[in-house]
């Protein structure tokens, strides 16, 4: 049984504004899946559907085999969730928020809570409303992690955190993976965090799944080629090449992403277009993201 199962999800907030179009993928036990996509690609919608906070107009969601709309309590007890805009009661003190969670979750681990609290340096007597955005997020993370959930769902967990706090969050996640073998589904815009934490990537684009791949495989099976723009290298012709997944114009050259290793891409370009001196290279995740879903530069530049 998959820990998370999205099956043919369709969702629109209003007519004509289709956010998710036939999205299917699963997350397996102990996997760490990084959900990527531009702003508005539907990441948050998908994670809210997973938590049962929204109802999919079509398709099915299962968490730990359960329907989150039918068994909300059971799901919430076994899943740790941090939303993008965590709302904690402003008037409560940190201590009171923790007391509340301790009372709700039978699996609450005081040792984890204490350790994280020290690490994050969260003042336990402070009121939520006096904390910075990053600190509130850390309190939310602490609450999500300390009940040792079987699955963690994190929507932009590093949003609003400074680099040191982000690294602390990563360290915490990795300890959690080491100790509890949790499964994590998280969305992020920080590609360096994704590279450190994720085993697998799902990239949403235009409402659908553009990439679903093991991270290392993705890193080793794609390459970027740069070729000079010219009559024999029209974007249409390049796009028709086998294995070519995107073409972008940058100045007087064209950037092509191939689902091929660099050397294979070089020989393809030579064979099909007679371009002998193309330079193809592997791509870091950030570059890959931009090449695959980044905007097109104006054609007339």
């Amino acid at each position, binding site marked *: 049984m998959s820990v998370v199962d999205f099956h043919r999800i369709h969702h629109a907030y209003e007519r004509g504004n289709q956010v998710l179009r036939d999205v299917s993928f699963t997350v397996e036990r*102990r996997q*760490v899946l990084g959900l990527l996509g531009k702003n508005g690609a539907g990441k948050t919608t998908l994670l809210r559907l997973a938590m049962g906070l929204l109802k999919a107009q079509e398709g099915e969601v299962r968490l730990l085999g359960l329907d989150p709309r039918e068994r909300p309590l059971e799901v919430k007890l076994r899943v740790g969730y941090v939303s993008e805009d965590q709302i904690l009661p402003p008037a409560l003190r940190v201590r009171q928020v923790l007391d509340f969670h301790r009372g709700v979750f039978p699996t609450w681990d005081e040792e984890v809570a204490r350790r994280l609290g020290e690490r994050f340096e969260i003042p336990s007597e402070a009121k939520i409303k006096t904390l910075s955005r990053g600190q509130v997020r850390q309190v939310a993370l602490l609450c999500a992690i300390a009940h040792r959930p079987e699955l963690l769902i994190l929507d932009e967990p590093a949003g609003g955190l400074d680099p040191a706090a982000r*690294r602390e969050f*990563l*360290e915490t996640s*990795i*300890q959690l*993976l*080491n100790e509890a073998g949790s499964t994590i589904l998280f969305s992020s815009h920080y*590609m*360096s965090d994704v*590279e*450190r*934490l*994720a*085993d697998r990537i799902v990239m949403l684009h235009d409402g659908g799944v553009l990439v679903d791949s093991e*991270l*290392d495989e993705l*890193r*080793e099976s794609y390459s970027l080629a740069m070729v000079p723009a010219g009559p024999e290298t029209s974007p249409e012709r390049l796009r028709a090449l086998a294995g070519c997944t995107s073409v972008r114009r940058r100045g007087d050259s064209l950037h092509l992403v191939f689902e091929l290793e660099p050397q294979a891409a070089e020989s393809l370009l030579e064979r099909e277009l007679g371009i002998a001196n193309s330079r193809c*290279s*592997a*791509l*870091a*995740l*950030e570059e890959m993201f931009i090449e695959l879903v980044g905007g097109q530069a104006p054609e007339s530049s």
Partner: protein
Amino acid sequence: MQIHITSASDLPIYRQIMRQIVDAVAGDRLRPGDKLTSQRELAEQLVVSPLTVKKAYDELEREGLIQTQRGRGTFVAARATAVDPAAQRQRLREMVRRLLSRAHLGGLDFTSVLALAHEVHAELEAERAAEGGSDNDESGSTPRESESES
């Protein structure tokens, strides 16, 4: 074991870990029988997914460079030989390519580069002799000139 990884590299993290362990063995900083940092510990040290570290160790084990002994840990293999000759060759090829481009920019022709290589080789030999080690000499293969590129 000093390993440094960066997420902006065009190498996936497990490859960076593999490469640095290979380099440490090749550079004698890790010797046969030495114990490696445990996978859990290394994941926490480097702040990377435990599965990534596991993948690097599994690959190195498959290549025969390291061995895991149940309950004791992971050790550098007794006969840790140069890893995958094809991969090694590809890496050297990239380095040679960069070297030759640099030389070209610096106005050195190919013959001068070869002369330089001989010079450095002699230096290394002398250093090795001075250390008193009668280590086996694996510099038997001679470079082939046909591989030169602009």
